[in-house]
């Protein structure tokens, strides 16, 4: 190979997003925006009871409506194969397991006809009494075999009760978090096209390859007959991590009417069958000696799932990692209710769990007369507190210290309600963040073209994270090529298999496979004497064995968040003009997009703290506030300055890039930092989210 001029590494450079121009000009296509000829439109009909059976469904009025082509329900729907996710057994029985469940789908010539057709489908039910209210003393609570992520539900070390009895200072409080809905801006949607027994699905999801596998199973098709294309995704936050009813129903409808079918879930419907974060009841017990050293940590979490499918959130798992203490317990108990199935939402487990733990730590700091940062520093473990594994890297203390500096923490008077500016009570709060660092196996290919360009292929997905850009940078460095020479193709199940964009492991998992494919290509190029043959040359990577063989270590990212809260003394209105987040998340691949990710996570955390709550309608069994006027997500006016920075960290025990995942850690701890700041401002400790003004009005 000829000697090239030295390249500036692409990893670490603040590239603008590769698809930026497409997104700001409106040409980026999302799911149902792909063109199709002679397309028909599907609309979902939902159950209006929370439990029972459909006695009779009368499609007559719908079929009589102008433009309606078909009504499909359990009596005329084709049989689908069973898959792990019971939510995909669509239109297979008369049984209703929660209010809002899919009971029929209407296909019509236009959106208008489909909507009206769905409105006039008449369904008679035999309703049964429902049970939808999660309680810490629910008689049906049980211990699931594992919780999400494959964790043991319980852990126990030492003699917790004795340690709590003997502790100089204790905290014993219960924290409540409501259900939250992911609410990505793009509702779940699919365009389904059948061509000669082959099915193409333009879908909005977080992983085309896994969606293909599930759909192929449901329809009992060979996987190669199904192709899932996910060019752009309007956010997911976990709710698009598994295939949702829309992908199956669109395919089913398209086969029924023998035309391409578009099915876009409505915003209202998203509150029923596209997943949400379970409500939790969490009891935290902390015991400490006179110096603020923890002797006991107990985190006992209760959450819910549906009767359709078990989803057990790993709410207390973060408490296994955060702080040293010889006596410890975590438990998870689950109630199966007549509610929609909860699922992943940005940092499932860590997010609600750390609200409880980091609020309790703040309470312990107050009770011990210690600064909350100092309390955390004193309880920093040398190794994973439960399994003793060394940390691949752990820079929580550096985050706390640097954040304190940036935020101006040292000027803080620790006394609650000590600062007033006119009508505002002003307070500051801190909380820690953490998120585990995983990789899932992936395959990739890298191809050198004779014109000097490279094409890297991997079935990855960019749901707004910047993955397309990050992978391009990683590939450029691995190829020692200019970024402009590298084209990365993602978002298609026809590409080499890769895992979902979830668990903050996209870049780590896909990036490793890309690096290996590029290394393989370079090896092949070397054996060709550095020349690219006329037909090009391809290298491949597969990380399955590498990940299997990796050393056992505790791998986690850490962070610290600081919040200034202002509470109106008369009305209880809370405003957060300033937040600082410092993260130790390995090497930052793209500072521009990474900063956006951290800010985005913190913004969603702020929204969770102050605004969000899916209100259960106990009488009818559904989430009542099922739209964006009633379910408040933060608007522009809610968000003040957010200052984000990271500490230098490069962790090559994680992956060849030295990076850690950053998609979720930003939301972990935010709500506690806000609640701690509100406590500092007002003296009122809020243990139940959201922090609505009802709880603070004087």
């Amino acid at each position: 190979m000829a000697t090239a001029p030295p390249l500036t590494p692409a990893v670490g450079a603040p590239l603008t997003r590769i698809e930026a121009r497409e997104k700001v000009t409106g040409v980026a296509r999302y799911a149902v925006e792909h063109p199709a000829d002679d397309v028909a439109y599907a609309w979902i009909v939902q159950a209006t009871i929370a439990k029972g059976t459909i006695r009779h469904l009368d499609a007559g009025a719908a079929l009589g409506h102008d433009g309606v082509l078909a009504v499909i329900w359990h009596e005329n729907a084709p049989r689908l194969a069973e898959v792990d996710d019971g939510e995909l057994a669509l239109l297979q029985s008369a049984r209703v397991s929660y209010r809002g469940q899919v009971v029929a789908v209407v296909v019509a010539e236009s959106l208008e006809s489909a909507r009206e057709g769905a409105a006039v489908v008449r369904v008679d039910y035999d309703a049964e009494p429902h049970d939808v209210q999660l309680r810490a003393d629910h008689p049906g609570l049980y211990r699931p075999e594992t919780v999400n992520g494959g964790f043991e539900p319980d852990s126990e070390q030492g003699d917790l009760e004795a340690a709590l009895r003997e502790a100089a200072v204790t905290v014993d409080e219960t924290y409540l978090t409501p259900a939250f809905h992911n609410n990505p801006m793009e509702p779940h949607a699919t365009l389904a096209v059948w061509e000669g027994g082959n099915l193409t699905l333009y879908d909005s999801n977080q992983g085309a390859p896994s969606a293909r596998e599930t759909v192929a199973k449901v329809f009992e098709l060979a996987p190669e007959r199904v192709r899932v294309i996910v060019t752009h995704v309007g956010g997911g936050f976990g709710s698009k991590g598994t295939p949702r009813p829309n992908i199956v129903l669109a395919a089913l409808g398209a086969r029924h009417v023998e035309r391409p079918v578009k099915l876009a879930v409505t915003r209202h419907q998203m509150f029923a069958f596209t997943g949400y974060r379970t409500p939790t009841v969490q009891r935290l017990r902390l015991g400490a000696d006179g110096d603020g050293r923890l002797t006991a940590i107990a985190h006992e979490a209760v959450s819910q799932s549906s009767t359709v499918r078990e989803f057990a959130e790993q709410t207390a798992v973060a408490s296994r990692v955060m702080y040293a203490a010889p006596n410890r317990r975590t438990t998870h108990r689950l109630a199966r209710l007549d509610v929609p199935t909860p699922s992943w939402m940005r940092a499932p487990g860590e997010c609600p769990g750390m609200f409880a733990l980091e609020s309790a730590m703040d309470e312990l700091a107050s009770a011990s007369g210690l600064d909350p940062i100092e309390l955390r520093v004193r309880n920093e473990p040398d190794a994973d507190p439960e399994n003793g594994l060394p940390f691949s890297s752990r820079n929580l203390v550096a985050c706390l210290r640097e954040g304190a500096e940036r935020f101006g923490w040292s000027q803080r008077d620790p006394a609650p309600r000590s600062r007033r500016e006119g009508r505002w009570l002003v307070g500051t709060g801190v909380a820690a963040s953490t998120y585990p660092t995983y990789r899932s196996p992936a395959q990739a290919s890298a191809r050198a073209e004779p014109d000097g360009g490279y094409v890297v292929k991997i079935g990855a997905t960019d749901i707004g994270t910047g993955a397309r850009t990050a992978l391009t940078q990683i590939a450029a460095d691995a190829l020692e090529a200019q970024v402009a020479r590298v084209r990365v193709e993602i978002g298609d199940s026809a590409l080499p298999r890769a895992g979902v964009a979830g668990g903050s492991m996209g870049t780590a998992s896909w990036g490793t496979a890309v690096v290996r494919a590029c290394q393989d290509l370079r090896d092949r190029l070397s054996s060709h004497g550095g020349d690219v043959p006329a037909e090009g040359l391809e290298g491949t990577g597969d990380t399955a064995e590498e990940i299997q063989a990796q050393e056992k270590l505790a791998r986690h990212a850490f962070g610290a968040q600081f919040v200034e809260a202002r509470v109106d003394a008369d009305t209880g209105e809370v405003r957060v003009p300033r937040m600082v987040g410092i993260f130790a998340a390995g090497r930052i691949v793209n500072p521009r997009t990474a900063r956006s990710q951290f800010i985005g996570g913190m913004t969603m955390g702020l929204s969770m703290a102050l605004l969000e709550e899916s209100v259960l309608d106990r009488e009818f069994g559904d989430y009542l506030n099922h739209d964006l006027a009633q379910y408040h997500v933060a608007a522009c006016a809610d968000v003040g300055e957010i200052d984000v920075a990271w500490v230098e960290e490069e962790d090559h025990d994680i992956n060849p890039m030295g990076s850690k995942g950053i998609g979720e850690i930003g939301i972990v701890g935010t709500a506690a930092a806000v609640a701690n700041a509100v406590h500092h401002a007002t003296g009122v400790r809020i243990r139940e989210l959201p922090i609505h003004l009802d709880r603070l009005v004087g």
Partner: protein
Amino acid sequence: MASRSDAGDVGGSWPKHETEVALGVNGEEERLVVDTRTTLLDVLREELGLVGTKKGCDHGQCGACTVLIDGRRANSCLVLAVTLEGSEVVTIEGLAQDGLLHPLQEAFVERDAFQCGYCTPGQICSGIGVLEEARQGWPSAVTADLTAEQVPLDDDEIRERMSGNLCRCGAYVNIVTAIRDVAE
């Protein structure tokens, strides 16, 4: 066991009504026959192939469908197409001229004012509306002096005026910066 039924009082079939309407879209005159129920948003996306205008809620609660109608920002999901006879609509596709991005589009790229990009066309159209409204001296809910003829677009003004456009990725901080860049 209790028995329940829905939609019991709506059983008939009403024929759909179609009407002709002529309107300008991004400078082109469009003559269309529309179902009276069809919104501008659905005409743009399903009839004209202008899918840059997004449907985030279909009820005026998220702003993703924001376009400019006769120069003013509006939620296209709540406007029936049939009402638009003679109106001029500009969508995200109509902002760049001769391949040159509108300054606000440039600023959104430079400031990384989006992630998933789904709210972005609405944010940009709304931002253009905000710049024009401020130029005309319109006050906002956070304007201290309602009688002032000039309203400088500081961060609080931008935040308030842009609050009709939700962004779930949490790009507000960068959106505010991008709009301020252009306002200056």
